């Protein structure tokens, strides 16, 4: 399979701090890649470099064979990159339905021109993530778990080729996590490649085809989930040297 996403030597500095340091990896079409790492490892920065909310200090981002390093976020969205935010970014004053309709109106390929059809599509995605009953609520009336689902529905309504999920399971209970995993598996079956950041190791292990570990902005492991999780440097990064 050809890679849909290729990151080559990406670095991002914030003044003195190097949040992402010379990271390279590829993501194959139809693959689910899990990204884990301790707090502050640079996971969210990495997603921002791919979605275009941040520009890399150096290095390249190649999407579907096309370099997109210099493109603004909205152009990347139109090429087919959808993301969710860890710190949720709903449109608080809009209804849940219209939040998702924005994704359908814009999104991959420029989106739907007609508002009614966009709303219809939005309804479908809300049913898909299990928010079908909350369509008429205002987005800021949703609780935490609801907002996570809303983030996912908004990104899916863009009909992306690549979905970037930034901790969509954080703060959810076991039942809810299983539901989200189920949703993401179905998303992959539709041919969408996924990059997931997650802290819930058990969840990401069962979901991912491959795991990538970041620590202090550097890639310290990349491979099959079982192998990565038993890797000595990874265990050290999470638990400290003595325990390992």
């Amino acid at each position, binding site marked *: 399979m050809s890679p849909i996403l290729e990151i080559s030597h990406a670095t991002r500095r914030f003044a003195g701090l190097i949040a992402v340091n010379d990271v390279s990896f590829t993501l194959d079409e139809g693959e689910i890649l899990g990204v884990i790492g301790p707090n502050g490892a640079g996971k969210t920065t990495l997603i921002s470099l791919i979605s*275009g909310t941040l520009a890399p200090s150096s290095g390249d981002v190649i999407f579907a064979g096309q370099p997109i390093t210099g493109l603004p976020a909205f152009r990347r969205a139109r090429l087919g990159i959808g993301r969710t935010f860890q710190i949720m970014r709903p*449109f608080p004053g809009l209804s849940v339905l219209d939040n998702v309709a*924005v994704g359908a109106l*814009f999104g991959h390929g420029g989106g739907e021109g007609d508002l009614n059809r966009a709303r219809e599509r939005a309804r479908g995605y809300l049913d898909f993530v299990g928010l079908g009953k909350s369509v008429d609520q205002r987005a800021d009336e949703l609780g935490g778990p609801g907002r996570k689902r809303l983030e996912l529905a908004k990104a899916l309504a863009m009909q992306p080729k690549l979905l970037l999920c930034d901790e969509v399971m954080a703060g959810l209970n076991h039942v809810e996590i299983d539901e989200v995993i189920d949703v993401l598996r179905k998303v992959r079956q539709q041919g969408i490649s996924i990059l997931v950041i997650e802290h819930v190791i058990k969840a990401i292990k069962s979901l991912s085809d491959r795991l990538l570990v970041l620590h202090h902005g550097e890639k310290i492991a990349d491979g099959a989930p079982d192998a990565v999780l038993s890797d000595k440097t990874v265990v050290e990064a999470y638990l400290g040297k003595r325990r390992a």
Partner: protein
Amino acid sequence: MTALRIVIALVVIAALAAVPRFGSDVLVQFGINALLLAVLAQGWNIIGGYAGYASFGNSVFYGLGSYGVAIAMVQWELPFAAGLVFGVALAVVFAFLLGLPVLRLKGHYFAIATLALAQVMIAIVSNIELAGQNIGLVLPPLNNDPLFYELALGLLVLTTLTIFWLTRSRFGFGLIAIRENEEGAAVMGVNTTLYKVLAFALSGIFSALAGGIHAYWITFLDPESAFDISLNVKMIIMAVFGGPGTILGPVVGAFTLSAVSEVLSSEVTSVAGLFFGIVVVAAVVLMPRGLADVVRRFRKSGWRYFIENIRANRI
């Protein structure tokens, strides 16, 4: 329901259009002012209410529209309509030239930058010979108030229809998304820079047309009055009083506050400004989201609505 609304709207427009036939001269003059202010409030609504950028630069569009008409009619002896077109062209050019850098700023910074624009325009226009420098221009008088009234009403209808279209269009949804969360809008594929500039220009077109009509009606303009920043404050107060980001809120706000201000200045004359201030402060405290929100929520919460607002703002 929609059919009923259309009928109501048509009846209201017809009633307003009939005012010059039956009303007194004073009422017609009040009407022209109120209608033009409503257009300005509605124009501000596009950039401030829908896109969420509190512009203090809209009085610049108004001034450019005024000068467009004045320069075309006085200096080039062109008809009024050509002046309007010229004024609109000036406003659009201004919106693109200054919108691009200024709309990169957010929140207070955007407001301050646009606030400075009106001052700068006074200084510039005061030194342009074509614009009559700081003395100003005197337009050929046209003593026909009913005509100006109907023109202003027509412009208000056009502006309001544009906003109605906005709420149902992809473009309008993009603007609302920008207002609600700009970064969130960008990652969903909204070309935020382009949309903001277009909204700025659209709001400029209507403000310029209002300025052009006003200039021909008043027949005199100078830089100080054309780029008057207090006019910009007025349109914001009116839009916010009625309900920013709603189709009819700014119109209702403009009519209500124009009437309140008119009554006050005839009843209590010298302290009218003070009372007007009290009305505005009370409105901000009791209904910070405007009349439109009161109408929406009052049925559910009743009088508690106002108390909830006071609590929510920790006053």
